[in-house]
């Protein structure tokens, strides 16, 4: 569930303003007229299939690439050309390859901290926060995939930036590591930091983000709170009733039920009016053993990103 966001300041100047940004690579339009405001203290998720233009858009926001047209400002300042006054206020998660060679974890992060003019105490604090507190003296080349990812995230956080860009930060983590990182991210948000992140984990975006934007073919097709997206999508909830309690015909006749099917040991009722159906079911069968499946952000996402010309698109996505 998306947590309430007391730290989001709706009145102040936004953290990021993207205004009608377009970027072409040759004849291919990677980003197509995207406009977007990200508020201070907001946790913003940028979602979309591979090749939708997420990385390009994020790199334009970070000031690594120049937009062909349109503008990007961060805290009211342009990010292009390289703005060294602004860079200390931003933190960008590095690739897991971006480690200084033949250094220990502590030496690497110390070097990164020095690039930002940050002191050593911040290095110890940050390593502790990402769960590498006991790995100070391990060479970066000897870290596991998950540990490398944590160190890459630490590289983005060590100088205490106000705006943090994270690129699939939980991709190489196991379930436990993922949940640990969620806590780190929630802590950053609670401290008033603005977070922009891309992910392929829709459950994660739903759990963490105040708002998500979905990018399809370079266009931002929707920007909203996950719960609003789900509520407005018209996706149905499913009620699972153990077989034998009620027959299919009887179920189809209940007020609010749109479709009935048998799946495994359950009768599955599709509805947009969960409350009404439950109220009608209660006197007939009781509600013991009845399960409710509400639609998720994933359902909405798949609906929005489905491409009519290629029905297999969602199955064919390559992991980059």
């Amino acid at each position, binding site marked *: 569930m998306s947590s309430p966001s007391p730290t989001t300041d709706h009145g102040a100047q936004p953290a990021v303003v993207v205004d009608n940004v377009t970027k072409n690579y040759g004849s291919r339009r990677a980003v197509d007229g995207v406009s977007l405001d990200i508020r201070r203290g907001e946790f913003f998720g940028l979602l979309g299939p591979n090749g939708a233009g997420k990385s390009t858009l994020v790199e334009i926001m*970070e000031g*690594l690439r120049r937009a062909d047209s349109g503008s990007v400002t961060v805290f009211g300042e342009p990010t292009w050309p390289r703005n060294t006054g602004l860079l200390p206020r931003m933190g960008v998660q590095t690739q897991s390859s971006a480690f*200084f060679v*033949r250094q220990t974890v502590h030496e690497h992060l110390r070097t*990164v901290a020095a690039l*930002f*003019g940050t002191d050593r105490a911040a290095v110890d604090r940050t390593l502790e926060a990402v769960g590498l507190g006991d790995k100070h003296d391990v060479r970066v080349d000897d870290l596991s995939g998950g540990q490398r990812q944590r160190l890459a995230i630490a590289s983005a956080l060590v100088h205490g930036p106000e705006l943090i860009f994270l690129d699939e930060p939980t991709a190489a983590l196991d379930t436990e590591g993922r949940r640990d990182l969620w806590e780190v991210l929630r802590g950053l948000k609670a401290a008033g930091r603005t977070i922009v992140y891309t992910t392929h984990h829709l459950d994660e975006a739903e759990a963490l983000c105040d708002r998500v934007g979905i990018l399809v073919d370079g266009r931002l097709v929707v920007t909203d709170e996950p719960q609003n997206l789900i509520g407005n999508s018209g996706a149905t909830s499913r009620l699972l009733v153990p077989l034998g309690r009620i027959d299919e015909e009887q179920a189809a006749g209940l007020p609010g039920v749109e479709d009935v099917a048998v799946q495994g040991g359950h009768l599955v009722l599709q509805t947009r009016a969960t409350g009404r159906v439950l109220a009608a079911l209660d006197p007939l069968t009781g509600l013991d053993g009845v399960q409710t499946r509400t639609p998720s952000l994933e359902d909405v996402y798949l609906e929005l990103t489905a491409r009519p010309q290629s029905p297999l698109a969602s199955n064919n996505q390559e992991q980059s």
Partner: protein
Amino acid sequence: MSAYSALTAAGYRAQVRDKTTVFFTFAFPLIFLVVFGLVFRGRSVEESGFSYLSYTAAGVLSWGVANAAVFGIGFTLMQWRSDDILRMIRLSPAPLTAVIGSRYVLALGVGLVQSVLFVGVAMLPGFDLVPDSRWPLLIPVLILGITTFLLLGVIIGSIADTPESVAGIANFLMLPMAFLSGSFFPLDAMPDWLQKVSMVLPLRYLNDGVSAALTGRGDLSDIGWGSLGLVAFAVVFGAVAARTFRWTKSS
């Protein structure tokens, strides 16, 4: 700690922890010294009165120092860009001068150790090099040489995207240049037109300066012209390097 000192410290640690590269950086010029020493033992170059070794010692030293400067920064920049380390630095407020400056100090350190080792071995019985009284002038000449060839290495490290292409481009430039600039055998032994060709090669000027300072061949004006030539090449390489430098793979 400043970005510059942190990058220098990280670079130093990376360098000394890579024992194989350390060994070959310093052993390479020495091997040439030994080989040439054995081949030309006791012979002197016609009419000049200087021993063959005094030619090759200066030439091999300047080639070895130039080679280390080119390869060191060439590989580092290529690798840092390929690993996205340059991208990370680009996203920090650290200036490019901190990156290049830290590599410059490391290259000067490598050059210093190379020179001391090389001259020390060349003075051993059997090689019998006797440094000229002008030898302290070797220091500014070598500093200029390292500066020039480091900037050439910046260009190579910015153009090349793989270790193979760094090695390919750098060898393509440095090996023929070593022969054409008189590092491995005396320029006097080459046809006139080839001697003229050598005037457009930066190593020729480093050779001239180093031999005048180390072995006393030529006079102070040779050191002056050598230094001027190196400065001119450094300006040109610096201008090209500033245009070819890339922070990321895709830019």
